């Protein structure tokens, strides 16, 4: 079948800058950029003799990060726990709910405007209400994380579950697939990229939410530490806290990417 084989050679997968040099460069360029940025910051601070209570130098807050590492780590760990709990809860509730809503037309039509509204509304403004309901402490922060991550995951999961071609449904029906089989073999894997897209947004919002929640309602965590540093005008600690929060976000994002790679091996080289 010479005709068939010639078409195959022209079709090999999407090109990507693979191999070790490409990967190394991908890590190196941002690292160099960050370093250059910090170096510039340091230089300008020193040149203009900016006081530490206004804007600390990178050497100041990085040194503080090293000195108070155990304490900062403790708070970072508390914050991470809160994020993990709230986010997990968000995923466990929103994904099945998304499937349910998409499966029942009336439900979707009725709930959709509500979902859109709640998605747009800043969840942090209901912080005070949550404070009343859940009191001071990490539970309130967990609830904030839950609310912040719930909606992006719900919306993207819904679009993922909706995205099945109706003619594919004909084919699976002709196979005699049950609802469960259609979900397990087709709908869920097809929705995964969408669910992960929602999760990536959700985790960013979760980190935003947790820090703000910890500002007002907690006695542990990076938000609490930052707030306390602010009240004492401890700028180096404050900045250390911000860096730590950013690193926590980075780590969670990395965990998500790693999970994505494990669950969706086919997506690795495919630029969708």
């Amino acid at each position, binding site marked *: *079948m010479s*005709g*068939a*084989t010639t078409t*195959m050679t022209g079709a090999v997968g999407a090109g990507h800058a693979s191999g070790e040099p490409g990967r190394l460069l991908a890590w190196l360029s941002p690292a160099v950029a960050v370093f250059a940025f910090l170096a510039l910051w340091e230089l300008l601070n020193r040149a203009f003799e900016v006081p530490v209570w206004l804007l600390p130098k990178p050497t100041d807050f990085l040194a503080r990060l090293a000195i108070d590492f155990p304490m900062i780590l403790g708070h970072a760990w508390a914050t991470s726990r809160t994020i993990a709990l709230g986010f997990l809860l968000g995923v466990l509730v929103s994904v099945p709910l998304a499937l349910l809503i998409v499966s029942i037309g009336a439900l979707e039509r009725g709930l959709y405007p509500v979902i859109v509204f709640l998605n747009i509304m800043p969840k942090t403004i209901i912080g005070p209400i949550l404070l009343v309901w859940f009191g001071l402490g990490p539970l309130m922060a967990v609830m904030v994380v839950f609310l912040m991550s719930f909606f992006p995951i719900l919306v993207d999961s819904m679009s993922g579950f909706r995205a099945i071609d109706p003619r594919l449904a004909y084919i699976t029906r002709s196979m005699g697939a049950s609802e469960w089989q259609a979900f397990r073999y087709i709908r869920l894997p097809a929705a995964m990229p969408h669910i992960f897209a929602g999760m990536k947004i959700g985790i960013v919002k979760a980190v935003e939410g947790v820090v703000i929640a910890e500002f007002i309602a907690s006695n542990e965590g990076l938000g609490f530490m930052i707030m306390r540093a602010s009240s004492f005008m401890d700028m180096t600690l404050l900045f250390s806290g911000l860096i730590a929060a950013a690193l926590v976000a980075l780590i969670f994002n990395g965990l998500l990417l790693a999970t994505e790679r494990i669950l*969706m091996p086919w997506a690795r080289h495919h630029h969708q």
Partner: protein
Amino acid sequence: MNDAMRPRPVQGTTTAGVPGASISARGITKLYGSGDGAHHALGPIDLDIAPGEFVSLIGPSGCGKSTTMLLVSGLEPVTDGELDVDGRPLTAPISDVGIVFQDHLLLEFRTALKNVMLQQEIRGLDRSLLQKRATRLFKELGLEGAENRYPWQLSGGMRQRVSIARALVHDPSMLLMDEPFGALDAITRTQIRHDLEMLWLETRKTVLFITHSIEEAIGLSDRVLVMSNGPGKLVDEISIDLPRPRPAHLGAYPEFARYARRIYDIFEKLGIYHFK
């Protein structure tokens, strides 16, 4: 086309398989929706397809060809009329069927082979048997080496071939194809048409093949049914008397010209073509 070029079945696997199903329809009609807003998509039409027959349905867009296919497979219920498959009235979607659409509709997250093996997973069929059949189909369809590739790594023609393999791996008695080669370039189309015929000749399943292409219809079928504009009715039926396997260049046969001429004339009469 001589015997030496014809592909041989792989040793140790059976080619006989399940015989083709027969289809018999009387006055079948399809209305989508109800009341005043109802869309009369098809019919009434009568249809008789004998076991193992390769029948093409040709007609303009929107005439109800695809609807016919959905009715015959039981995936859409008839609004009116009687429909029997293998002598029994059709009440639910048939599972003993293979379906190929114009879009390959392969799962992007499964390799080519795993896409085909989906039939085994969902139907709960014997794994080693279907694996053997899948491997053989891949060979016959020129897909060797593509087993572990993902759809996005394959060309359009190869994706359709995988789609065809998926429709055949469970050895259905009926194959339904809705403009399966419509999205392919002309060269690929001719090749895959030939490959399909070769495959079909081994097992002689009943095939209902929907197409816009007169050449494809005549090139593949035992009979061509011509449908009018929507709501579609069958306006002509042409028995194709050409040797099998059909040559790629049908122009060498005067009968081809006659059949094609007949179809073009109908289309012109129906107002599908306007030639000055």
